[in-house]
């Protein structure tokens, strides 16, 4: 019997030591060097409600990715048909995921059909018919392919956002997918939320387009936009007033190059005015392409367009080899470095919208921790005192179990990297309630058994045996509920479910296993007449 007590006590002590080791980094900031080398350094992971920070739910507009894939294919198809001298007219250009063609005669339509079948496996005719003797065909991306594109768009967006956040330098960011097209971004402790949001949400599509200098901008502004052109605006910073002006520009719609070919982007300070600009470097393929484009367009203006806004439109003086270029645009240092980050991380394949945003200031988080901790400590002390007052020495045993319960619960939370949230603190406090209940159940049973005239040892034996089933059933039932909450819950519900689950498991262990050791130790081989209960 003594041997079994020793083994059980050893298990408990080992577990408590392990919990202490896990908790040490959260409790003390001055741990010895050797500790940092060999032992866990994780602190209790606090939810955003406790430490402050930003929580975003983004939705990837995956349909847009499908649309732009279609637009690209349609452009290619158009050029291909012109080469093959197939007569057609494009009536709708990839808007809403459909493009509509009009054909003057049957041979043109047949040629189109065979071209589509041969060279464009991703496209299909959605509907066709004749209007006023002309053949009409609507083209769309095949459903299966569209699904793939959507899935890819979300995955790629996730990766891109992760890259951006990593380079922005947030400690412990969390970027996880949710459902089919949503992304959750959690940035603990972030202060400049507006900047973080613009960094994450920006599409960052970099394009190089030629400025159309043959046609009149004024005419275009009146509404006569020449075929194949588009109006964009250039954003210029007026140094004297510090205001940004928007200047309209007429661009050729065709994208000569895009940001895909970038190898790196970094901030540099200009020699003349000390202005920051972003210098970019293309990969070898991009460099060759850039050399060709600049060679073909000497003396023309090349616009550098980011998300539809022209940043600068310098005149190409000569063929540029070496694959380097600069984006100037009178940025502040912050803007330039953010731009470099998004260019390095790449463009989002589809635009994202912010569906949900929660920002908690650091002071509110601290307040919540302080109050939550205080309330827990007060409640804890009250319970400890009450248990001693009611159960005397046995109450003390229950108190030991309770204290151990808290220790193990927090230790397990650190070990499993579970997040402590505000409802989580409430969950802990409730766990204390459940742990007390287990002890109350046992003690009341022992009392009952004593009343029937049993010896203390027999009463303890019977009390534990009878109470165990009750404790097991009631705790497992709650556990079942907690597991479902974890599966379906979001935010606070999930944080609560985590602490409750761990709390129940730990309290079953401390209330039944730990207290029993103490009881056994005191009644073992002694002829005690009475239990202080």
């Amino acid at each position, binding site marked *: 019997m003594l041997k079994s007590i020793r083994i059980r006590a050893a298990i408990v002590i080992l577990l408590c030591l392990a919990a202490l080791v896990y908790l040490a980094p959260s409790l003390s900031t001055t741990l010895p060097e050797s500790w940092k080398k060999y032992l866990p350094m994780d602190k209790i992971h606090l939810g955003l409600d406790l430490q402050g920070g930003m929580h975003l739910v983004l939705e990837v507009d995956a349909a847009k990715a499908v649309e732009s894939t279609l637009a690209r294919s349609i452009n290619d198809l158009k050029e291909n048909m012109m080469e093959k001298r197939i007569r057609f007219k494009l009536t709708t250009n990839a808007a809403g995921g459909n493009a509509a063609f009009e054909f003057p005669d049957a041979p043109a339509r047949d040629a189109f059909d065979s071209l589509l079948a041969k060279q464009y496996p991703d496209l299909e005719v959605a509907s066709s018919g004749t209007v006023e003797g002309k053949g009409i065909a609507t083209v769309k991306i095949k459903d299966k392919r569209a699904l793939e594109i959507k899935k890819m768009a979300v995955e790629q967006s996730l990766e891109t956002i992760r890259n951006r956040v990593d380079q922005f330098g947030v400690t412990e960011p969390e970027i996880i997918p949710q459902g089919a097209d949503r992304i959750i971004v959690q940035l603990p402790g972030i202060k400049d939320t507006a900047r973080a949001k613009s960094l994450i949400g920006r599409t960052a599509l970099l394009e190089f387009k030629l400025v159309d200098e043959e046609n009149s901008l004024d005419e275009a502004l009146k509404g006569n936009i020449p075929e194949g052109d588009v109006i964009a605006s250039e954003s210029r910073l007026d140094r004297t007033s510090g205001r940004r002006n928007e200047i309209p520009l007429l661009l050729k719609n065709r994208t000569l190059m895009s940001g895909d070919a970038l190898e790196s982007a970094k901030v540099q300070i200009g020699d003349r005015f000390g202005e920051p600009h972003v210098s970019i470097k293309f990969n070898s393929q991009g460099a060759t392409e850039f050399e060709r484009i600049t060679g073909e367009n000497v003396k023309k203006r090349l616009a550098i367009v980011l998300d539809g806004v022209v940043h600068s439109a310098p005149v190409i003086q000569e063929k540029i080899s070496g694959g380097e270029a600069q984006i100037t645009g009178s940025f502040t240092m912050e803007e330039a470095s953010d731009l470099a980050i998004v260019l390095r991380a790449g463009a989002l394949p589809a635009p994202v919208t*912010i569906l949900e945003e929660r920002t908690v200031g650091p002071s*509110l988080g601290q307040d919540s921790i302080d109050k939550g901790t205080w309330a827990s400590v007060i409640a804890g002390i009250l319970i400890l005192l009450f248990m001693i007052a009611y159960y005397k020495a046995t109450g003390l045993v229950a108190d030991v179990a309770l204290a151990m319960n808290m220790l193990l619960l927090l230790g397990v939370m650190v070990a499993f990297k579970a997040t402590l949230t505000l409802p989580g603190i409430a969950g802990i406090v409730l766990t204390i309630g459940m742990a007390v209940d287990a002890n109350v159940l046992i003690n009341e049973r022992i009392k009952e058994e004593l009343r029937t005239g049993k010896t203390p040892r027999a009463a303890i034996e019977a009390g534990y045996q009878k109470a165990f089933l009750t404790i097991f059933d009631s705790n497992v039932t709650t556990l079942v509920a907690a*597991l479902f909450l974890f599966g379906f819950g979001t935010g606070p519900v999930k944080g609560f479910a985590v602490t409750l689950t761990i709390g129940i498991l730990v309290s079953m262990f401390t209330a039944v296993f730990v207290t029993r050791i103490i009881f056994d130790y005191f009644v073992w081989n002694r002829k005690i007449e009475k239990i202080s209960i």
Partner: protein
Amino acid sequence: MEILKSETHYNFVKLMKPTVFLSLAVIIIGIASLIWHGGPNYGIDFSGGTLIQIKFKNATHTDKIRSAFQSAGFEGSIIQDYGPLEVMVRTPETGKNAASLTTDVEKAAQTAFGAGNYEIRRIEMVGPKVGKDLTRKAILAIIFSWIGILVYVGIRFEFRYALGGIIALVHDVLITITFLSLFDKEFDLNIVAALLTIIGYSINDTIVIFDRIRENARKNIRQSLDDIINASVNQTLSRTILTSFTVFIVLLVLFFFGGQVIHDFTFALIVGTVSGVYSTVFIASPIVLLFEKIRPSGLKRKK
């Protein structure tokens, strides 16, 4: 120390009829209150909208706050006091551009109150789409936890016990919602977490008594279920009171010292746990009794 005499013989079963009517009455009042208030007072988690919590250095008049945010495009905002020098501004619509929300709020506050005179403690924005999603998930979480409990208790005990337990849980949730509605509290995700806690606590309590009923039923095959239930509730009474008392202490401390953020959360818990103890004794057991009368399971007990 003993709160109760070691053996009590209260006739709880006799009280069951009036208490069931009492519960029904409270729930009907709750439904009436919900209709009167035009449905639950959903927080932004479920309805969508924005919430801004600001702490001021000096006392600032509500009208000034209202006009400051009105000019920034936050129409129809509700302004609530939230502790000393602290207010919460809520608008039912997300409206506006989500991307520039933070900047807009900051700008509006700076022009109206001047930099350094205020601190924005929290900004939350929930789009209507997400709100719907969160509502659905919250309801699913509750319903599935009920089903999980029903199955587990059904397996460990008998089906009629599971049914009694679940009806008691539904009862507690309804009673809590009644009080939340009567006091015009807001329904948000934290309240859902509270309802779930109540479910967990109440089932815990119910199982303890069921367990005793099961034990006593095996022991005294000849005794009527009325008597068994009465004896069981009496035998576990001191435990019920003790445990509820300690949980109640904890909740009161949280309510008074836990801070504003979890104030409503603990309010719900207090109502729910009281209802949980009550329903265990007066709702769960009568249902088991009722089923016994409809379909006696005497054979089962003779095992």
